[in-house]
């Protein structure tokens, strides 16, 4: 069985972890992203590679990860339930293991109508909890039908999402607990904009043993100006934040947003409940230095 990944080892220490999201290219030329890769390489503990994010068809993460591994990055590969049935999910996981990818972020996946192929068939053969369980099964050298895996068992470090600011809180807490039972090793929250928003969740889940990273999203001008509750899946922006930034002039926008986000990251760091922060820079990955 392979050794635990570098990321898994980092989770085991006390250090404050920083990860960053990177979308594969919409094409098969990964070198298009070389500049971003170069910037991220030394700044973060791991890069999270997305999987057809917002249902937009991009290069499959398994393939893109191959390239990133060659660049020497520590990776977390996202796998969504939307596009692949249980056979393909397990196949891809074995392929990932074969390439040396050990960290998997198992998520449900935004619905297909958000993306550029809205007429396509959404799969959801497994949901995120079943996927987490499936990965755990592979770790025990079995597929989910009970068949034995040939050769060594993979050693996946399993991550999943949690909605800390979801309303109502009850069902999200229930799901969180189920994920823990299914074998999650680390959690990444949906984007947090204000720590006050997570208090309801923490009231019900007083202590979290599993390492939890807070996702922080660098909002674009378009997102602030065009925001209506529900038009960006997974984004819940409070009025106080959008009001504050609606009046900012375009030229000033990004520096001000970076400043604001950097302060948020500081707050999260000091909070004590989070083992790290996951950055979603939405194309501005090269500016990561100004945030951390």
């Amino acid at each position, binding site marked *: 069985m392979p050794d635990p990944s570098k990321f898994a080892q980092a989770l085991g220490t006390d250090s404050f972890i920083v990860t960053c999201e990177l979308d594969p290219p919409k094409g098969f030329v990964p070198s298009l992203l070389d500049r971003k890769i170069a910037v991220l390489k030394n700044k973060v503990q791991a890069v999270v590679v997305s999987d057809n994010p917002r249902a937009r068809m991009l290069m499959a993460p398994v393939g893109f990860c191959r390239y990133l591994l060659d660049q020497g990055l520590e990776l977390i590969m996202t796998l969504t339930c939307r596009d692949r049935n249980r056979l393909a999910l397990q196949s891809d996981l074995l392929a990932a293991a074969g390439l040396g990818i050990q960290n998997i972020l198992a998520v449900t996946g935004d619905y297909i109508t958000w993306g550029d192929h809205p007429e396509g068939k959404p799969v959801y053969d497994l949901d995120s909890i079943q996927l987490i369980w499936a990965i755990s099964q592979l770790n025990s050298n079995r597929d989910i039908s009970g068949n034995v895996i040939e050769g060594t068992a993979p050693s996946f470090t399993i991550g999943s999402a949690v909605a800390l600011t*979801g309303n109502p809180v009850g069902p999200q807490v229930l799901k969180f607990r*189920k994920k823990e039972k299914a074998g999650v090793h680390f959690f990444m929250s949906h984007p947090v904009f204000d720590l006050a928003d997570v208090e309801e969740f923490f009231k019900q889940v007083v202590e979290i043993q599993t390492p939890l990273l807070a996702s922080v999203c660098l909002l674009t001008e378009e997102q602030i100006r065009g925001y209506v*509750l529900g038009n960006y899946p997974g984004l819940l922006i409070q009025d106080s934040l959008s009001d504050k930034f609606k009046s900012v002039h375009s030229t000033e926008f990004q520096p001000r947003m970076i400043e604001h986000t950097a302060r948020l990251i500081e707050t999260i760091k000091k909070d004590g409940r989070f083992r790290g922060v996951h950055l979603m820079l939405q194309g501005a990955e090269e500016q990561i230095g100004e945030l951390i």
Partner: protein
Amino acid sequence: MIIASRKPFAEIKKSIELYENILVVGCGTCVAVCLAGGKKEVGLLASQLRMSFALDKKKIQISEETLERQCDHEFLETIREPLKEFDCLLSLACGAGVQFLAETYPGKKVFPGVNTSFIGVAEAAGLWTERCRACGDCLLAITGGICPRTLCVKGLNNGPCGGMIDGKCEVDPERPCAWVSIYERLAEEGRVNQIEIMFPPTDFRFQTKPGRVTHRAYLRRYNAGSK
């Protein structure tokens, strides 16, 4: 009940325009109840087609007939004699009825006049919503009478997903999140523990197409040997 709604007129007209002697066949059960294909709808469509073809100066004969149902042989047989003069049948029954009509009268060209949508309920006069996917493996006992396979857009067995906002679905903000509804219903009844364990992946063999159900009392009649 099966819910259907009439196809766009232009689409219906195009599908039958090559024929000269058309019988519009309605159905007096599900599609009549959902006001899509009963006797009245047959009359309306027939009048529209007559006028439309007449304005195109095409000589097409449109006749009307409504059967009790089109999913039983006996009702379909009642029109065998009269059907001799028609070469084209426009059926307003659900997809099952249209096909059965076609099977029963293989020499006729059969066309559908409605789109069959779902198994649903009447929330108010003229408003029907889906409730059941006919998955063949009903799990309503566990989810407190609310079906996540039908009412959750993603059809999750362990929900809600992270896209849920204020109790509403990520995809349709008018629609309540099915899993929030399930949670709240079970919480009220003190039965949340039913969804605290992971629901295993769906066994899709129950949904293998085409489905076939034989009542166990009749198994011997239809199977040579044992099942």
